[in-house]
């Protein structure tokens, strides 16, 4: 009887993890609830209408966008083919985060888009101040980059890998 009461109390007192939805993005998949809470303090929800620009080329780079739903076309140099389309659970800006201050491409919403934005400075600050969280995120980023590089290697031989890497500084389309 007591066990039942304790179990019932536990179910009543247990708070659902408000930020668990963030785990749909592979780089946040292994983060604990507390780490997700710290991250969520720096996230900003943004909505874009179809055809609206998320950012323009050569503008200062501040935000990384995580797509919750909708489709975004990255115009310019995001993909060997000249443009790429990013969809749900993908992100834009992670590579630039480490070495660029200026956008190297433009991004436009193809459909109505719901995205989460985080400042690259806040993101790097979180990584620096929370080593465990930082290692988890950076491992996930490396994993996704390696998948991306393999994907590029599987492209037809006419495509120059070095050029591709140089060009693909904006979007990191995840492999499914």
């Amino acid at each position, binding site marked *: 009887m007591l066990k039942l009461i304790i179990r019932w109390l536990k179910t009543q007192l247990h708070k659902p993890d408000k930020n668990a939805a963030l785990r749909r993005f592979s780089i946040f998949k292994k983060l604990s609830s*507390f780490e997700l809470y*710290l991250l969520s*303090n*720096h996230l*900003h929800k*943004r909505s*874009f209408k179809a055809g*609206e*620009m*998320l*950012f323009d080329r050569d*503008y*200062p780079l*501040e*935000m990384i966008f995580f797509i919750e739903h909708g489709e975004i076309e990255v115009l310019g140099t995001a993909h060997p083919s000249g443009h790429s389309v990013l969809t749900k659970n993908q992100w834009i800006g992670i590579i630039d985060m480490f070495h660029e201050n200026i956008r190297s491409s433009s991004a436009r919403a193809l459909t109505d888009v719901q995205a989460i*934005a985080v*400042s690259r*400075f*806040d993101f790097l600050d979180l990584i620096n*101040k*929370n080593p465990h969280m930082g290692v988890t995120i950076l491992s996930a980023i490396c994993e996704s980059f390696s998948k991306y590089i393999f994907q590029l290697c599987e492209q037809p031989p006419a495509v120059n890998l070095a050029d591709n890497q140089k060009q693909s500084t904006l979007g990191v389309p995840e492999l499914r």
Partner: protein
Amino acid sequence: MNWTKLLFYILLIILLVMGAFFYRWIFANLVYAMVFSYILDPFVSWFERRRVPRWLSVVGVYLVILGFFTWVTARFVPDLIRQGNYLFDLFKSGQHLSGQYIVTIPFINGVYEFMQNLDTQIPGLALAPKMIEILDNANSTLAGIPKLLMDNYQNILSTLSLIATIPLLSFFMLKDKYKLRKAALELSSNRYFELCFILLRKFDTNVGTFLRAILFEVIAVGFMASIALGIVGVRNPVLIGATAGVANIIPYFGPFMGGALAVLTVLINGGPLIMIVYAALAMYIVQVIDNNLVYPLVVGGTISMHPLLVLLTVIAGGWYGGILWMLISVPMVYITYSLVKVLYINLKDFRII
């Protein structure tokens, strides 16, 4: 232009103006609370990273500050009570606090004797009688204070209650820091979202770092000056050190003010002339340590303002609002200048201007 949109914006502006008019009395408190929360934020964040809920972190930091003030009060209040009792006895004795009587108080008597000495050396100076006259005038003004307090007790109470609201306002600013920031950014359109965020981040970093650096410097200089003056044997080293620390907020001129105060105290106390050299040397060493170690470490460079501009700002601050404004005008102008610079650079980068 869409008329409905235009009408909405006009109504919004009217509402904002009305809101600003209604809340105008507490703007100053909001600014003070903001300064307070900027100073405390790193400590709250430190606790938060150690899994302490944010509201509890704020309460914890408040308790630490309260404990510190309690300790300071317990440590220094006995001396203050002793000095207060001395004044209270003077009142109780029923003697009229005339200028002639006040100059019998040991500290003031030292000043009076020094002036008398000057009067004998420089004929026609007559500083000592002037001092008695000033003290008589001050006495009659002081006599009117109880009546003034009684007449304005409502204003005094409301001022005190407003001051008490600052920690409360600051509590919510600290607790809901991220919510407030998100709410502010939600107002921006997608086109200007990144620009607004950059401005907010730079404001946050510049103002926060600058305020914390200044506070740290005030404490460090005050502490070092107190010790240095105590070592060389200047009287009231803690009081002079604290004043020197606060005056240090004003670049270039503040340090001289602290040094001048130390030298003046030695002169008034009538100590040996070599003490003046010792006091000046002590303050000089404190400044050398501050300029070469404390300031570069905590701020990362000196305030890049021309000395002439600093002087003009201090004078303008003094004319506008007395000593307090003399102290805060230079940091305020510096913060405004750096924010305008950031705004200009980013407006250019985003090709808005």
